[in-house]
């Protein structure tokens, strides 16, 4: 976070240079919506209108926004439980997401998944997964599927700095490099896995992404606070995937402002308040992007404020939508277990599938 070496001017990379003002403003709108959406969950969560976990992404917005802004028709996205921002970046609506948090039937997963399990396969978003690193072989598989079908595409699969120590991730890396699978693993390094700092969870040389060397895989490390840098370096990985069917690990440094989940009462114990404040003040990705666009003459304080206010209103409206939405029925518990049953096929009607008396 305190990288002071002068870095190249990522704004001049073609992928950024070619951005229209409108696209840049859209990115600003997106990070505002991410943040406002999550801020909007706080009150209803504390009122007990949501259950289970709520892992907030606030502070990390530039990562999902920057990487996913590069995705085309055949590029897919999958992530862990801290998935709200990725969902919005893929084009999901606040309403369906908020309703999911409320456990409502109009939620994106019909109230079955909750905070950790947003899904929109029609928008190439494959969740939202709760088992640490359990999504990493799935991401490999999505990329494999794209290649199998002869399409030029890839899968971006996100995981945390703590998640890299799960065996399934290691297995996936070896297969990815060995079979030339166009998957991009993005380690969203926010410095902590729950209350454990990076140094206490991982042994590594220099950085986490360098573990890719073990498989002779390409890797890079990215300063996540800068949307231009995120986009510039991710595009290199996407090109590698599209053109050479080769995988990449990107380690994107970032930070989360809140606790591991909303239930994490300890989060000011395992890191200092100063550390949190410093990041918020000097490295906040939403502010930095806003400032950048103001400097570029694309935004003004007022237009920025306007965008942010709209995002806030959209979030508030989604809370209202979610509050008024219907709960799933008890009968719906048995839907979505078997495709064949749901689709009332012959297979779905042959033999007993469910076993309550």
């Amino acid at each position: 976070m305190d990288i002071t070496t002068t870095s190249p001017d990522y704004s001049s990379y073609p992928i950024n240079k070619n951005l229209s003002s409108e696209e840049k403003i859209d990115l600003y709108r997106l990070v505002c919506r991410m943040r406002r959406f999550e801020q909007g969950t706080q009150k209803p969560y504390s009122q007990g209108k949501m259950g289970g976990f709520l892992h907030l992404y606030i502070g990390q917005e530039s990562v999902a926004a920057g990487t996913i802004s590069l995705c085309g028709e055949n590029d897919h996205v999958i992530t862990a439980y801290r998935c709200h921002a990725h969902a919005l970046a893929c084009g999901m609506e606040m309403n369906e997401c908020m309703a999911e948090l409320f456990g409502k039937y109009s939620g994106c997963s019909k109230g079955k998944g909750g905070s950790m399990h947003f899904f929109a396969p029609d928008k190439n978003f494959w969740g939202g997964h709760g088992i640490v690193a359990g999504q990493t072989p799935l991401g490999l598989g999505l990329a494999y599927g794209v290649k199998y079908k002869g399409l030029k595409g890839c899968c971006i699969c996100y995981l945390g700095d703590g998640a890299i120590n799960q065996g399934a991730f290691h297995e996936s890396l070896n297969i990815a490099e060995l079979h030339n699978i166009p998957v991009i693993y993005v380690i969203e390094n926010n410095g902590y896995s729950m209350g454990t700092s990076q140094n206490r969870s991982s042994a590594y040389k220099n950085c986490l992404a360098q573990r890719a060397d073990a498989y002779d895989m390409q890797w890079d490390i990215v300063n996540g606070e800068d949307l231009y840098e995120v986009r510039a370096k991710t595009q290199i990985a996407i090109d590698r995937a599209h053109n050479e069917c080769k995988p990449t690990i990107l380690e994107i440094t970032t930070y989360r402002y809140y606790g591991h989940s909303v239930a994490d009462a300890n989060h000011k114990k395992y890191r200092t308040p100063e550390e949190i404040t410093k990041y918020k003040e000097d490295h906040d990705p939403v502010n930095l992007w806003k400032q950048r666009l103001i400097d570029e003459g694309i935004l003004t304080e007022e237009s920025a404020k306007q965008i942010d206010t709209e995002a806030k209103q959209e979030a508030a409206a989604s809370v209202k939508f979610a509050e008024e939405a219907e709960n799933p029925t008890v009968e719906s518990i048995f839907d979505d277990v078997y495709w064949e049953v749901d689709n009332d096929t012959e297979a779905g009607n042959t033999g007993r599938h469910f076993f309550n008396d």
Partner: protein
Amino acid sequence: MREIEYRHALREAFDEELERDENVVIMGEEVAQYNGAYKVTQGLWEKWGDKRIVDTPISEAGFIGMGIGASMLGVRPVMELMFWSFHSVAFDQLVNNAANVRYMSGGKCNCPIVVRGPANGGTNVGATHSHTPEGLFSAFPGLKVVSPATPADAKGLMKSAIRDNDPVYFMESTLLYGMKGDVPDPADGDFVIPLGVADIKREGTDVTLVAHGQSVIKTLEAAEILQNEHGISAEVVDLRSIRPLDQDAIINSVKKTSRAVIVDESKPFCGVSAQLITLIQEYAFDYLDAPIKRVNSLDAPAIYSPAIEHEQLPSAKKIIDKVLSIMPAKA
């Protein structure tokens, strides 16, 4: 009809489904160039090439998870576990991702995979290689579990499994691979057996024997001896698929015979046999003339010793003894 080996019947199913649907892909350790550890996939790599028949590293969590992910995009992977016993290193992918992804996405994702391989004792390969996890996986709603006892069932059920749009865990037996049996000629049309339909492998009136997989063979042997030496007419219900389960076939048989013995190679605690007994006592309570009994493996990890292992497993003799223990005293 032709007589072919169980492994050959499976191979024929793969070959036909590879032909029918270009999304079908066979994956696993040694399935391609080596032709499979048990030669089930023999010749397929030569015929279908690298794209359709894929060798993987020894990374079960990795490649099974990969298959699940690919299946969500419409690929239809048929993945071999060299032994089903190796499920233990891929368990999370098998019971969380495959079983739950449809549910947790509110039906938006779909997981049309087959995971297959042998799941049996009796070959002296010890505790870690002799697991019979039919019950283990059937316990997870979202999964389907199949265990065929004959070449024809193996072929017909495999073709259904591959076409099924849900995850199907297909449990074979290294002891059955070499067994021959009648299987319809492919020239006579597509041969498919639906999941969820039991097969009455032998009709009878005095006692119902329920089994699946390689236990069916031992059960039929026992039934023959029961008839010849004891004058007892045993009906043998071969489940074929554990989940979905053909409950009616079992209950109807027990209603007819009033007595039942379950033959299930897995361990007794919470095994398939326990589930079947629970169903029978619930749905045929008033028809039962005796407690339902079961023949399982002896309740310890699988012993290696070739001289002893078969004593740990169900046998015709044990089945017969168990049947005799619940038959009415001779007049």
